[in-house]
């Protein structure tokens, strides 16, 4: 009898967890890192943030990512960081950068493997929205999803103007590298 109850409880538990997983179908980022590099003739500037957060909804492959612009650390000097916050990205006015959209290729997140996907969405930096298709490398291993992407952001595209005096120190083209770890959202 005890064994029967134990089994019953186990089954119920198992079903509820399964049901929960099916019901949410959402992958939530556990950790997310963004690096950017500006390679100008006179100076290389690097900064990174580990505050990238995001969600992927499995059934319709839509996603949303967001990062606080003030979370970028690194730079070559505190003054440079301050310039980045206030003059270029204008973090007071535009506190976050976002990327929202949809994964083009169909994908089954329950299948382990390596996938090359394209994420199409609207990249909102400095308050200027640009539609982008970004290539993403995705690996799925036992429900844990890792994503990696590298892409360029043109300052001109997002109306970030740099003074002529520093154009030798700041590149027009910023290379951005993103890596994320996802797990199914469980609640």
């Amino acid at each position, binding site marked *: 009898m005890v064994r029967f109850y134990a089994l019953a409880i186990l089954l119920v538990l198992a079903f509820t967890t399964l049901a929960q997983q099916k019901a949410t179908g959402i992958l939530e980022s556990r950790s997310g890192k963004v690096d950017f590099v500006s390679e100008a003739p006179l100076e290389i500037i690097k900064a990174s943030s580990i505050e990238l957060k995001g969600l992927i909804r499995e059934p319709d492959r839509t996603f949303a990512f967001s990062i606080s612009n003030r979370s970028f650390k690194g730079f070559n000097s505190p003054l440079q960081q301050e310039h980045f916050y206030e003059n270029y990205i204008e973090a007071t006015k535009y506190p976050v950068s976002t990327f929202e959209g949809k994964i*083009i290729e169909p994908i089954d997140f329950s299948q382990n493997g390596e996938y090359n996907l394209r994420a199409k969405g609207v990249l909102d930096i400095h308050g200027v929205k640009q539609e982008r298709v970004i290539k993403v490398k995705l690996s799925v291993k036992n429900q844990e999803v890792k994503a990696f992407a590298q892409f360029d952001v043109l300052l001109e595209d997002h109306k970030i103007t740099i003074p002529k005096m520093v154009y030798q120190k700041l590149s027009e083209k910023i290379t951005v590298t993103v890596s994320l770890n996802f797990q199914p959202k469980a609640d």
Partner: protein
Amino acid sequence: MTWKKHFITCLVFSCILLTSKLSAQEPFFRINSLPEKFKDCQITAMMQDSCGLVWIGTSCGVLKFDGFDFKKPTAPDGNFDQPVSALFQDFTGRIWVGFRSGKVAFLQENSMEFFTVLNNNDVPVTGITTDHSGFYYFSTYGNGIYTVKNDSAINFGSTNGLSDLSIYTLVADQEGKIWAGSDAGIDVLTFSEGKPVVQHLGFEHGLPDIMVEKLVIDDEGNVWAGTHDNGFCRIDSKTLEVSILNNAASWDFGPVTGIIPGRENVWISTHGNGLIKVAMNLVKTPKAFSSFGGEDFLKPDGLFRDQEGNIWSFTSNRIILIPGDLFEFVSGNENNGLNNVHALMTDRENFLWYASEKGLFRHSPDFSEKEKPQKISLPPGISSRDITCLYQDTFGFVWIGTFGQGLYRINPDLLGGRFYTEKNGLVNNNILSISSIGQEIWFATLGGASRCKLSDGSSDEFPVFENFDESEGLGNNFIYCVYTDKQGQVWFATDGKGITRLSNGKFTTFGADQGLLSNKIYSITADSRGVVWCATHDNSLYYFAGEKFIRLQTRLDAGSTISSIVFDRKDNLLIIHENGIDIFNTQNQTLLKYRAESGISPIKPEFNSTAASSDGSIWIGNGNGLIRYSPPEKKTITRPVIILNSVEVFLEPVEFAVKNKFTWDQNHLSFSYTGLWFHNPANVRYKVMLEGYDLDWDLTSDRLINYSNLPGGSYTFRAMASQSDDFSKGSEISYSFKIARPIWQLWWFWVLIFTAVSALVYLLVKIRLNRIRRIEELKKETIMFQFETLKSQVNPHFLFNSFSTLISIIEEDKNLAVEYVEKLSVFFRNILEFRDKDLITLDEELEIIENYIFLQKKRYGENMSVEMKIADNHHLSLIPPLTLQLLVENAIKHNVISKIKPLKITIESTAEGLCVSNNLQKKSAVSESTGFGLKTIRRRYQLMGDLALKIEETNQTFSVILPLIKT
């Protein structure tokens, strides 16, 4: 119109300035931007309509372009000035415009109107198409597809099987299937009874990429798909089989934004690498990619080919035009040695051999900036400058003709060669041209012709030369060109003796008697039917018709010596000269000129320095390098299409599609027209005529003509356009209209005037007659009155009474009696004096009445009193004579006068007139009251001008008011 000319010059200049430097192998192109007025507008879409006008969708509405002006179509308000996302023309010719806002508009009778049937909101309309069953289809970026028929719209979305609601592109194939490209591949919709059956195409069906951003239908009805990452593919519209035409995995040119399908060449516009021309002759492995357009043109958003064959593309602020799409240019540089190419040939591997100032080179047919040609080493004694011609024989030997050094033959392995000169039996060391029939090779020289027959392909064989000169039958010994035709005949172009033909071992010379008016022949060629053509030194072309040469009548005006003529495989004749290349289409006898506007001027071509390649292209060597000509891919129009832009009356535009009647004073008309010829708009000339006014055609370059002071009548305005002054087969417009004649030129107006004048004359005569009658009457009346007055004054009663009175006075007072008689006599004298007059003054009348009263008073004494109150200003007023006397006499006649009942008469001037009144005490037995007196007075006043008397009779008084006539 000098400003207009300036404008065109500016346009041409700006085109030249914007042309980037050619490098590698590139077509020539011109770049335009929108005019200042629209400089803030971003271009979003482009197409050409069936008339030939180019439509441009921008972020601020739609524009149309005729090669000169960018114009907005007329619209009722500014609501149409919003971002355009789709353009389409249906079978009926109607232009449709899809907006980013989700709205759709169309052009109705030249004016924009919103299409209200569609209730799509917020998401952009990305595609519009229609099928032959009357359905219209609208794709949206977010709301799927709408179908519309008979004013009802139905929306199709995911429940109907659509893979994605955000559609990039929409086309209908020839069978009515609707193709929609999205991020999920292609959905092919077949509608039966309004319900769609969706077939989905994705990776599993062979699509190189599922992000399908552009779909285009080719002439055969197949669908070409451009993808975001993996290039393009062709899909058979019947079987839906996908053919990948490029190496999809290695596509690194970026997203495809436009495709011009083709069998030989496919044009692709890409986001990131500009325009790309893919040669399809080597299926699946495109050999030649060339991207160009420079920094300005890396992200074109679309592409199309117009009716003239020009290639158009656009970025957000630039329009690129490749005129004609026939020529590619390779300019000379340090690497390729293409400086002043003076001899040219293609070998069996389609490699190009060229002799230039820098040497003799062999190069692959694809020129890139980096690739270097193979330099062929020449034996000592031969300079590359001496090379006049190159020829490869059937065994693969390359024969090099030189000027002065004889012949040099290079072995097929390129490792060795051998010299042949006069010493070896060659007729002359100055070789100008080489040709062959099989193993029989002919050499044209400045000293006659040589022939050698090769028996085998070994390099040891020493050919034997057979020589021919004037004595054997050649026209003369100076031979510019030798040409061997398909029938095995050999044709020699001589300097001074026309053409000599060798046929079946017999020489025949053709000169002026055989139609060749010029005897210096520079170039000979033949078309695909074997008809021989030649170019002469006076820049004429002749073709051989059996026995005679016939001069081509089409005006060439090359302006400089024709250096070579050559046919492409579609029988278009290329005429190459210093001012450019002209192409004569032998089928429709039209000549198209390619000059500076196509990047071909000036060139310095050497005589007969052309080479045909097995892929159909023709290479032309010139001072700047090489030009590669490829025959036109599609049949194109060869003449400008003329359109009527506007008709204006006194500079006010009229709706000329419907209005063609004008009033007599709307007689200043202006016509504006354009010959659409995007290839070279400024080159178009017009022949215009106003039938009914002009006697002959007027030749002009203006696109506007005014006619002022047109008399009434029927007219037809006609205009034709041509880019070559040959108007025989050009398009024509005509507009018939009527100007009404002015009213005075119409018959009924004169009838009316005549009637009116007649009526007037009649009326005048009538009035005059009336007046005469009235005067007559007045006269008669006056006479009657005078007679009556006289009658009454010589009335025996009056005289008797007067005499009785006199008798009584004579006894009593002698003096009084004398006075009485005097008064009586004055009275009668006055009567006689005034009776002829119409009017007398009141004073004169008062004198008569005073005398009369004096006479009567002596009779009635105190029983009768007369009171007179005349205002001073009335003394000179006028009155008919004896009027007062008559009234006073009447009063005496009709009233009792006694001591108890005295008669009081008052004569008083009032505002109304002169009032004569008396107290009324009528006699019981009225004697002789005929009423004649009053009637006469009334009548006289009437005749004098409708003046009326007023008679007032009460119980006590009787008064008459006479109007006083002012002097």
